[in-house]
Structure formats: structure tokens, C-alpha cells
């Protein structure tokens, strides 16, 4: 339904273009009167006895046409350009809405930069087509048609034909040269982008550069790009500098033809001196639309390419939808949190091998499940499915005994407190990051959540405390601090199910212990899933499953698993060395 988003907009607002076009043509018509009036004045002045009253009339008319052009121009610009601005904002809003419905899978396949380009460049280019582009075409067509018409009708048909002879050549040259210019311009842009990338890379790696004293080498590497940039710019200039003078030259021929042939017509009394002057005026009027041909082609080429890209992106259907049997209105808001996974196998879209195979888990309300395994064993995949970031076959995952697909996404996700692996924070205040921009939490709740996640003391040390901004324009937080804020964000929801996806990896072991102890209390009566690389993070788990290549390789309590001498034992040995085994067991 959303795939024809621009036509939909145009259907709604086409009337603006109609009004715009009407006023534009009106304006053009008024403008073409002006040279004729000036010509008439010349003729009046040339007469042996000057009719002053008539001259005054025409002076008045010239002023009126100028005012008319001004007024109509204001109106049509408002309709056409304003409509395009409206379209721009409309598209950007729709883009956001659309992006918000897209699945993780969609984002995995695309770079942030590319998606940004849709929202910024492509929408901008479409606006240029539907605003200035449309205006240039209408104005150009109107002006040249009416001017030529006036030349033929008012002045002299044959003179018109002769004087216009060079114009097809100009148009041909402009179109040919336009292509070359566009290609060279693209090269300039490409070089510009690689310079940006180069600097970006350099700044990210500045420590390494400094450590290995690579500064001079970096400058030489930069020089290569820098000189390419210069060269491509000069190549572009070499062609583009021809454009203006060539147009001048060809129009010069037009004016020369009028000068020679037109004058002879005046002398032969076929046309008046005023006609001759008016003709010059019309030629000048035609110049402008011809010059803008290059720009029109440019604007529309880019606009249409962007239009197609936008249509394509808008036509991507959301993959993950509310379950068919779900009814957000009727659902109870709080789930109990018991969880069952039955024979779950899963392969990522477009992949043949299974990321998860035959997973069976049963978790009662209040139990804590620990998941451990090497990188790529399927831990995060499992979490992605629980959050329904990918589609899940019916009957495989049940929450409170009901299929996950029978819940709305909102209810499902509202009841899960998720702490992601990558600790992403919005550039907003710490407070907003913890209560995730919703108003339903009090200051006390925010404080409590931050105490549980052991970030409270850090926050109190910041100048603006909870109102401290994070990110680009605010304080820089360490990885561990970000993780703890992410934990607070999950805790504040008091969700039915906690999911911690390697959420303590960047905090030191002591803080980890403190947080885990706090969480144990907090999770009393809630279901929990803790994924970790470090065995130490799983100490409170009722059951631990060991994932390997998407299968549950081993399961049981810590003690049971240690005795098995399998993968878990191996992981344990790697992390602690065999000799610490006793101290661990002592503590348990």
C-alpha cells in the first residue's frame, strides 16, 4: 500500500501544481508583453509628433507588467516550490515510519550510510525534481513558446526563422556537453568521498599512527588522493568553462542575424524600429530557458534515479508483523513469563545451514537460564527469535503457554527486558536513555534502576547527573558504563522476562559480581536468560545450556556440567585454569 508513495502524494496535492501552472503561464504571458510595449514606445518616440498621452500609457503598462510578473511569480513559486517542500517533509516522515517497521534482517543487509542517503540525498533530489525542476520546465516551455509566438506574430516570421537557426545547435551542444560535465562531476564527488573516508579512517586510527610514527607516511598517502581531487576538479572545469562562453557565442550569432537582417527589414519598412527592438527583447527572453536545459536534465536525471530508489525502499514489506491471532486491545498487559521452546530449528533468511537446531527449553516463571557457548554458536540467534526480530514458525516458542505469534509485537517486547550485546545509547540525557523516552517512570524508579545496575555512583559524579547528555555532544562513557545504563533500561521495566546478552562483558569482575547479586534479587519471581562468555556471569543460573553449532550440547547445573568433562569443562579450564576449580566450588 505504501509502495506508490509519491503518486499517492501527488494525487492528494495535484491541485497545487495546477494552480502553480496557471499562475506561471499567466506570469509568462505578462512578461512577453513587455518587449512589445517597449517597442511601441520606441515607435511612438520616433514619430515626428510624439503622442505624449500614449507614451505615458505604455510606460504605465510596462510598470504594470513588472508588478504582474512579480505577483504571479510569488504565487506560482508558493504553489510549486512550496508543494515540493511539503513533499520533502512528507516523504521524510513516511521514511521514518517505514524504517521503523523494517526488521533486523533488513538492516543487516544495508549500511547505515546507504539508508541515510535515502533519507537525505534521495528525498532532496526528488524535491528538486518536483519543485525547481517542474518550475524550470514549465517556465522554460512557456517563455520560449510565447516568445517565439510573439516574434512570429508581432514582428516577422522569416526574421524569426533566421535568427533562431543557431538555437538547435546550442541545444545539441548543451546536451552533449552536459553529459560530459555530469560524468566529470561524478568523479569529483567520488574523489571527495574518498578523501572523507581517508580522513575518517586516519582519525579512527590516529593512535596506531602515532604509536608507529606513521604520520609522514599518512600524509604521503593522503597526498595521492588530494592530487587526484585537484586533477578531477580541473578536468571538470576544462569542460564546464566552455559552456557559458559557447552559449554566449551562439546567441551572439542570433543577435547578429537580427542586427543585420532585422535592420535591413527596418530600412525596407517591413518592420518598424520598435519591432526591431522588441525582437531583441524576445531573443533575450529565450536565452534563459535554453541555458537552463542543462540544469533541467541534471535535476531530472538525479530526481528520477532517486525516485526509483525511494520507490524500491518503500516497496519493501515489513517482514515481522503482529501475529494474526493477536489483538493488542484485548491482551493482558503483563505476562507471567513462563517460556517454552519446542524443537526449534532456524536458518537465517538466505542461508541454508541452520543457526539453531532442535532447541528444547522449558523455563518456569522465576527461573534463570544460563546460556554459554563459543562465538557463532547461536546464542544471539536464540535471543533474536525470542524478541521476534525474525519470524518464528508457529508452535515453536510459547510464552505463558501461548504461541509467540499470537501476541502483538508490542505486548511481546514490552514484557521482555533486553540488554543487548552492543551497548547503543541515544544522544540524549542519561535519564532519557534509561526510561527510553517514555513518561511512565518516576525519578525514583530511574534512580533505583541505576543503583541496581551499579551506574548510580558514576552518574552522580557527572556535572548534570541524570540530565547529563551522552554521545557526540555530551560526555563520553566507557563501554562498561554504557552497558550498565543498558541494564538499567531493562531493569526499570520490571519485565516478565529478562534477557542479558553478554551484557557484562565490559565491566570488571567485581562490578559484575555486584550487578549479578543485585539482579538476582530484582529477578526474584521473574524469568531470566543470561548469555555470557564468562562462566562467572552464570553463577545464579538454575540451569545452564551449552550451545555449540546451534545445538544444545550439554545442559545442567554448574556442578553437573563441570563433572561431565565436556565442552563446559573445557571452557571452564580455559578461563580459570584447572587449579582455581576448587575455589569456585568452595564458594558455591
Amino acid at each position, binding site marked *: 500500500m505504501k509502495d506508490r508513495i509519491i503518486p499517492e502524494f501527488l494525487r492528494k496535492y495535484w491541485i497545487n501544481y495546477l494552480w502553480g501552472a496557471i499562475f506561471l503561464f499567466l506570469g509568462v504571458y505578462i512578461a512577453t508583453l513587455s518587449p512589445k510595449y517597449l517597442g511601441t*514606445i520606441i515607435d511612438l518616440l*520616433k514619430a515626428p509628433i*510624439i503622442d505624449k498621452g500614449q*507614451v505615458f500609457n505604455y510606460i504605465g503598462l*510596462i510598470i504594470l*507588467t*513588472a508588478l504582474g510578473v*512579480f505577483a504571479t*511569480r*510569488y504565487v506560482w513559486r508558493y504553489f510549486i516550490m512550496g508543494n515540493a517542500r511539503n513533499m520533502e517533509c512528507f516523504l521524510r*516522515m513516511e521514511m*521514518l515510519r517505514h524504517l*521503523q517497521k523494517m526488521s533486523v534482517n533488513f538492516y543487516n543487509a544495508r549500511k547505515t550510510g546507504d539508508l541515510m542517503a535515502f533519507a537525505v540525498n534521495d528525498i532532496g533530489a526528488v524535491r528538486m525534481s518536483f519543485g525547481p525542476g517542474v518550475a524550470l520546465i514549465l517556465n522554460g516551455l512557456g517563455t520560449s513558446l510565447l516568445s517565439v509566438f510573439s516574434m512570429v506574430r508581432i514582428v516577422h516570421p522569416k526574421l524569426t526563422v533566421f535568427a533562431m537557426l543557431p538555437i538547435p545547435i546550442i541545444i545539441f551542444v548543451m546536451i552533449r556537453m552536459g553529459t560530459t560535465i555530469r560524468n566529470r562531476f561524478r568523479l569529483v564527488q567520488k574523489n*571527495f568521498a574518498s*578523501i572523507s573516508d581517508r*580522513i575518517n579512517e*586516519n*582519525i*579512527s586510527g*590516529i*593512535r*596506531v599512527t*602515532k*604509536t*608507529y*610514527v*606513521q604520520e609522514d*607516511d599518512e*600524509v604521503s598517502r*593522503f*597526498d595521492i588522493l*588530494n592530487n587526484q581531487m*585537484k586533477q578531477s576538479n580541473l578536468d571538470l*572545469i576544462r569542460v564546464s*568553462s566552455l559552456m557559458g*562562453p*559557447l552559449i*554566449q557565442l551562439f546567441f*551572439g550569432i542570433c543577435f547578429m542575424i537580427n*542586427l543585420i537582417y532585422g535592420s535591413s527589414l*527596418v*530600412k525596407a519598412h517591413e518592420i518598424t524600429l520598435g519591432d526591431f527592438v522588441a525582437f531583441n527583447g524576445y531573443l533575450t527572453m529565450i536565452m534563459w530557458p535554453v541555458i537552463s536545459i542543462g540544469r533541467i536534465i541534471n535535476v531530472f536525471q538525479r530526481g528520477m534515479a532517486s525516485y526509483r530508489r525511494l520507490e524500491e525502499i518503500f516497496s519493501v514489506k515489513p517482514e515481522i508483523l503482529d501475529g494474526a491471532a493477536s489483538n493488542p486491545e484485548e491482551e493482558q498487559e503483563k505476562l507471567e513469563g513462563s517460556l517454552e521452546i519446542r524443537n526449534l530449528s532456524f536458518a537465517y533468511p538466505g542461508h541454508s545451514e541452520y543457526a539453531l537446531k532442535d532447541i528444547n527449553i522449558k523455563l518456569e516463571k522465576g527461573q534463570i537460564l544460563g546460556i554459554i557457548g563459543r*562465538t557463532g554458536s547461536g546464542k544471539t540467534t536464540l535471543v533474536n527469535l525470542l524478541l521476534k526480530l525474525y519470524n518464528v514458525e508457529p508452535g515453536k516458542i510459547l510464552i505463558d503457554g501461548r504461541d509467540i505469534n499470537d501476541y502483538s*509485537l*508490542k505486548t511481546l517486547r514490552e514484557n521482555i527486558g533486553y540488554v543487548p550485546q552492543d551497548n547503543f545509547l541515544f544522544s540524549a540525557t542519561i535519564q532519557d536513555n534509561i526510561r*527510553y*523516552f*517514555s513518561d511512565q517512570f518516576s525519578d525514583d524508579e530511574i534512580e533505583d534502576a541505576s543503583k541496581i545496575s551499579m551506574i548510580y555512583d*558514576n552518574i552522580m559524579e557527572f556535572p548534570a547527573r541524570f540530565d547529563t547528555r551522552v554521545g557526540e555532544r555530551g560526555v563520553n562513557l566507557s563501554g*562498561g558504563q554504557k552497558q550498565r545504563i543498558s541494564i538499567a533500561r531493562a531493569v526499570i521495566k520490571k519485565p516478565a522476562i529478562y534477557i542479558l546478552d553478554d551484557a557484562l*562483558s*565490559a565491566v570488571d569482575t*567485581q*562490578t559484575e559480581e555486584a550487578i549479578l547479586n543485585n539482579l538476582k534479587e530484582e529477578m526474584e519471581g521473574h524469568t531470566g536468560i543470561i548469555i555470557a*562468555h564468562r562462566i562467572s556471569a552464570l553463577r545464579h543460573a538454575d540451569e545452564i545450556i551449552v550451545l555449540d553449532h546451534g545445538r544444545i550440547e550439554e545442559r545442567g547445573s554448574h556442578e553437573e556440567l563441570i563433572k561431565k568433562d565436556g565442552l563446559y569443562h573445557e571452557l571452564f579450564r*580455559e578461563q*580459570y585454569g584447572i587449579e*582455581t576449580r576448587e*575455589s*569456585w566450588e568452595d564458594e558455591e
Partner: protein
Amino acid sequence: MKNNSLMRLLKRALPYWKIILLCMLCVLLVNMAELYKPLIMERVIDDFLIGSKPERGLYSITGMGIIYLLLIAVSSGLTVFQVNAINHVGQSIVTDLRRTVFSHIQRMPLSVLDKYSSGRLITRATNDVEALSELFTDVIIDLFRDVFLLAGIIIIMLSLDIQLALIGFTVIPFIALITNIIKKKMKANFIAIKSLTGRINGFFAENIAGMKLVQIFNMQKDKENEFQVLNNKYYAASLTRLKLNSILRPSIEIFNTLAIALLVWYGMGRIINRSLDLGVLYAFTNYIKQFFAPINDLAEKYNTIQSAVVSADRVYELLDQKDSLEDYDSGIQVGRLEGSIEFKNVWFAYNEGEWVLKDVSFRIEKGQTAAFVGATGSGKTTIINLISRFYQVQKGEILIDGININDINLRDLRRNISVVLQDVFLYSGSIRDNITLNTPMSEEEVQRALELSCADTFIQELPNKLDEPVSERGSTFSAGQRQLLAFARTIAHDPSIFVLDEATANIDTKTEKLIQKSIENVSTGRTTLIVAHRLSTIRHADVIFIIRKGRIVEKGNHETLMELGGYYSRLNAV
């Protein structure tokens, strides 16, 4: 300040004064041709069309036509030459400036770099410099051209007919007034739109990056509302811009027409009493039209100058931070250091008054391995930052081989120290480039480095082995693999001091084992400092420092610290 940076920029054009002068000469000639064109018309009308003077040779309608075309041809040629020449100058200056900015960034110390976001630095070297290129290519010559054209028109008009000229000029003050008022509004609007665009882009970038969270935490509606506010503001601002644009240019046209009307009205009386030729009046209407073109143009250049001034200020603000630049030339040349390290009562703060290290003293003998252990934010990473002189200590001193590191030539100091950070950075290029880093190195040396660092196993599996390209900062390699490559890099460059910030997360245990082995190999025969997170790493250290809140609270080896029964022994009890 503002004019200052603009003047300094213009000074960069001085070496090119000959070309610039030549360009100005071209512009002058083109201007003259431009000014002469209406006079040809005037001649044709007055001498041949109204009067009936005899046509002889070039003094004829055809002759005038040919002169007219020749003038245009010559001025077109001159224009092409001039545009190319001036762009050559502009591009040379800008390329040079871009290089200066880039080199400058290379020399900036981390303490200053930390304060800049990478986006800002990129903007300085790209967009800001680009904005300046227009200053050289367009503004300088165009200003000259417009001013001379204007002066030329005024002179010709005055010499043709003083009274008519003065009447034509009466509208100028009105135009100046209107332009001034609208330009002021446009500037405010321009700034508003720029800031809104930045915020909209930022909003999208952030929400795309964090979309998973937005969805998981059901923030869609809130984010939409947040954006709606931004979007509406932007729409309003862009409409204002539209309206201002609709008024500015056309209003000049109106005054243009008014001027012509005035001329005709006044000229009429004089034509009646034969004191004015009709051709002159017609030429005047042409000059009046030409008169407003340079004014229009000057007004348009105003924007370019405006943004050039902003960019120039920003570029010079960066380039002016000369005091803090790292100095690679002075200092004691040391060659290869032995590698003993001593901190003597070191105090350090990133921000004034917030001490991160408080009175830290310790000594590491050459060849020893030292582990630094402590909570996040305790200051352990800071210690390793200081050794490479990435930051300056405020109190106390750091000695390597008994020499204060501030006295050692910076280049030599850093060549002797290899730092591997948690998140390993790889340059785009090949794996080989990343190991040799432009230093000439034999194949054996590279191979040896790979073997010792245990990186050879995974490199053997790559299709192009050592020449496998590294794309997007090594994102195709796992964190563990990147770390192994960093170790290979270290071994290949054979520093006397090896500094490691041990990675904490997301390394699978198999690679983890390789890393442990690799660290052992790298640290052999080198003074090694590790910010450690693994007990196994710590246990192998000759000396362990426990850092709490910027102070060393315990030091010793594993055994002595276990006996001590302090923080370290508790840590081990986990």
C-alpha cells in the same frame, strides 16, 4: 578575528599574483566588450535606421554585425582562458590547504583530538576547505569583474548623457535598502535551516543505528513524535526561505523597470526638442538592465563569502592550535631503548582538577612483564596512555632508561613502544601493509612475526593470504583475529616496550588461547605492560599492580599478593 582569517587566506594567493593579474586583465577586456555591445546597437539605430548616413566598409550595418560577433568571440575565448587559469590557482591553494590541515591533524596530541569529534575534523578538511575553494575561484575574480563592470557602466552612462544617467541612478538606494533588509532575514533563515538539517540527519543516523532498540523497547511512537516536531520546524523554515527568495530577485526587477520608465518619461521631452537621440535612450535601457546584473551577482556572492568566512574561521581555529602540536624533531635521540620504566610521583588529569592518577610511583625493570589490575575507571588505561606521551603528566615524571620521557625525541620514544588497544585498528590496504606499515621488511621477517603471533593459521586460510585486502577497517576479521594481527605488527617492529590493553569481550575461547600464547611470545625479551582482565594473564606477570581510584594500592607477584590477603586475593576467590 573574522577579517583576520579571511586576510590570511587571501595571502595564500600571493604567490600566484601574476596569474591573478592576467585573469584580471582578461576580465577587464571582457567587460569592455560587454559594455561596447549596446553602443553598437545605438550606432545602428541612430546612424542607419533613424538617420540615413551612408554605409562605407565596416561603417555599415553588416560591418557593425561583424564587429558585434567578433567582440563576443574574443570575449568568449578570454573567458574560457580566465576561468581555467583562476581555477588552477584556486585548486592549487585549496589542495595545499587541505594537505596542511591533514598534516596538522597528524600532529595534534590526543588530548586535543579527544575534544574534537571525528566528524568535525573531517568537515574541516573537506567541506570547509571546499567552501574556501569557491572563494578563490569565484569570489575574487567575480568581485573584481562586477565592480569594474559597474564602474564601466556608470562611466559610459555618464559620458553618454549625464542627466539620463543621474535619473537612472535614483533607484539604487531603494534597491540597496531592500536587498539589505531581505539579506539579513535570509542569513538568519539560512543558519536556522542549516542547523535543522543537521539535526534531521543526526536523528536519522542515530535511529537507523539504534533501530533494533527502538523496536525492542517500542519507542516508535515517541520517536515519531520527536521527529514530527523537527520536521515541522524544518518545513516552516524552508517556506520562509522560499518566500524570501520569491521577493528578493523579482523586486530588483521591478526597480529595474521603474528606472526604465523614468528614463523614457524624462527622455521623451528631450527627444521632442531634439536634444537626445532615440538610440541613446535605447542604449540606456540596456545599460540599466546590465547595471543590475553585477549588483545581483554581488548580492549572490554574499552567501559564498559568508560561508567562506565561517569556514575560514573554523579552519584557522584548528590550524592556530600550534602550541599543543607534537614536536617530532627536538629531544634526545635515543635509538633503541633498554626498556626500564619508572613513574615518580605522577599526577595526571584529563580535565583540570579531576585527578585520574594520584601520586603514582612504580618501577618496572627491563624485560619484565607488569600487569595492571583494577576496576573500570580506576586509571589503569591512563597509565599506559602516558608512557607513549599521548598525554602530558601534570606533576611528577616518567622515566625510561632513567631519562625523562619529555626529553626523549618523540619519534624515537614511540618507535620503542608498541601499544595494542582493545579495539584493534587496521588500515585499509592489505594484511601485509598492516604488518609492515610502510617499513621495508624481508619476507622472512614478516613470516616470523606471523608465526610468533600465532596469526599465520588464520592468514593461511585466506584466499589471498598476506595480500588479502583489509576493508572497512578490518570489519571482515573477528576481534580476536585483529588482535593477532596487531601482535604480528608489534613483533615485526620489534619495540623494546610492549603495551597491551587486554580485550574483554567477544573473543571465542579458541582464539583466546592463541592470543594467550601470542602475548607470551610478544612479551619475551620486552618490557611488557598489560592492562589485564584475565586471571591467567595476571598470574604470569612478574609484577602486579592493583589500582584503585588512581592510586596503586597493592603491588607484588601472584604469591606475595595472595599472602597479603587484600583486594587481589579477594579477586582470585571468585
